[in-house]
């Protein structure tokens, strides 16, 4: 409990520092250029409050979109990554393919994605899923390659089936690395979400996602910036959720040596 409170305090401190820096830059730019360039935190806050309905709707839509993309990327990427990393045969055949496709930015394929999935919601999700999918695959593959052999022997010696080896060893052994990788890719995922919502949502209203919100209010700097703050908070939310998930699912990682005889 104390640990959680301390963690929360550090997050609040970080937010205070960011607001302080933001305010400083905003003031500096205004002083040097003689007019408002970057709306100050106060002005942005007022703009956010005035448009809270739309902003909340945009935030909710983006959060849901990101959550679905993350879940789909995990459901598809985790089994594939684990199997490729753990089965030497699959590793030989599929790894080159993965490494070839991994660095390809889905945005570069937008035209084909439009044609394949149309202009609706699906294509926006596909872009984000594609970006996160390879992150999950590569992380799971890397972790599954270095599973301690004696852990596998331990379950095989008791007569474990292949499925049981995955359930009792491969999955739990790799979960911490995979969740860390997922946390690292939140930044990339949010960027892809922004692109998907701006490039693939020109006909939508400002409540249809934070990307669209920012784009819609391009000429109202204060409101637009409120959307950017929303995007940062969205990233923070998922970062924290993934960290909490790791603490619950990988509890063994967080216990120290207590000794004994």
């Amino acid at each position, binding site marked *: 409990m104390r640990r959680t409170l301390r963690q929360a305090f550090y997050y609040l401190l970080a937010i205070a520092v960011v607001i302080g820096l933001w305010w400083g830059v905003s003031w500096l730019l205004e002083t040097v250029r003689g007019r408002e360039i970057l709306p100050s935190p106060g002005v942005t806050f007022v703009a956010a409050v005035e448009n809270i309905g739309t902003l909340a709707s945009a935030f909710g839509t983006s959060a849901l979109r990101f959550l679905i993309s993350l879940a789909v990327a995990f459901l598809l990427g985790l089994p594939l990554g684990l199997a490729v990393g753990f089965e030497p045969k699959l590793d030989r055949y599929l790894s080159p393919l993965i490494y070839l496709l991994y660095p390809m930015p889905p945005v570069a394929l937008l035209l084909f994605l439009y044609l394949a999935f149309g202009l609706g919601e699906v294509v926006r999700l596909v872009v984000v899923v594609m970006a996160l999918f390879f992150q999950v695959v590569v992380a799971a593959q890397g972790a599954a390659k270095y599973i301690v052999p004696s852990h596998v022997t331990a379950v095989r010696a008791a007569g474990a089936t292949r499925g049981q080896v995955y359930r009792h060893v491969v999955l739990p052994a790799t979960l911490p690395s995979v969740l860390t990788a997922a946390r690292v890719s939140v930044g990339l995922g949010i960027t892809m979400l922004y692109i998907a919502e701006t490039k693939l949502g020109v006909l939508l209203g400002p409540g249809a996602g934070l990307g669209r919100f920012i784009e819609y209010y391009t000429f109202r700097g204060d409101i637009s910036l409120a959307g950017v703050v929303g995007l940062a908070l969205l990233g923070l939310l998922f970062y924290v959720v993934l960290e909490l998930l790791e603490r619950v699912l990988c509890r063994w990682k967080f*216990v*120290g040596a207590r*000794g004994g*005889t």
Partner: protein
Amino acid sequence: MIEVDGLTVVYGRGEASVPAVAGLSMDVDTYELVSVVGPSGCGKSTLLFVLDGLLKPTAGRVRVHGEEVRGVRRDVALILQDAGLLPWKTVRQNAELALRLQGRKESADKVLADLGLAGFEKRFPSELSEGMKRRVGIARALALQPRVMLMDEPTANLDSITREHIQNLLLGLWWEMGFTGVLVTHDMEEAVFLGKRIFVLSARPARVVEVIENPGMGEPGYRGTPEFAAQVAHLRGVLGGNGA
């Protein structure tokens, strides 16, 4: 009863093949506890993996209780070198792992309590001392109530006090539960303390070069007797002459 007849195990194929065991034969009577010693890397663990059904022999026959070993058997338990505990499972989950994998519902609580691990059921392996970890590994095997117990260097890398403690524990369990046991070790004193007969293996590829009868074995006090010291000295001589 364990019967091994002309066991040969070759790893790999073609030019890259490495023979680990070559024409090894040995018999272990029911309720007998034997130890197997040999130079490091000679194929001792390979022999245990074959007895457990984890590895298929390249040639030769292995029978447990008169039946050919064709895979992991429910009445055979294997204690691994470093206990083989899964760090993400609690003490209880680790002790019940083999039971659950075999679809059995029994609890390991009594075995854990017998091994002095009561109160630690919810701890993770990282919270235990080395000696406790080994005891959890032993508990996992005992929970199966096996007729055959295979032990792969169960006291390797332990300090001498903990090692003797685990050795006494294994001896007591053998008396109490009456299993047929094969103990692989590179510790000569352990081999003499826990083996009614001691099978000395050659350097790789392994085969039996000598079987030492050790009738005095069976009591914790054996360790302090001149007979024990003489057997250890004899074993040392055999292994030394064998190029270990």
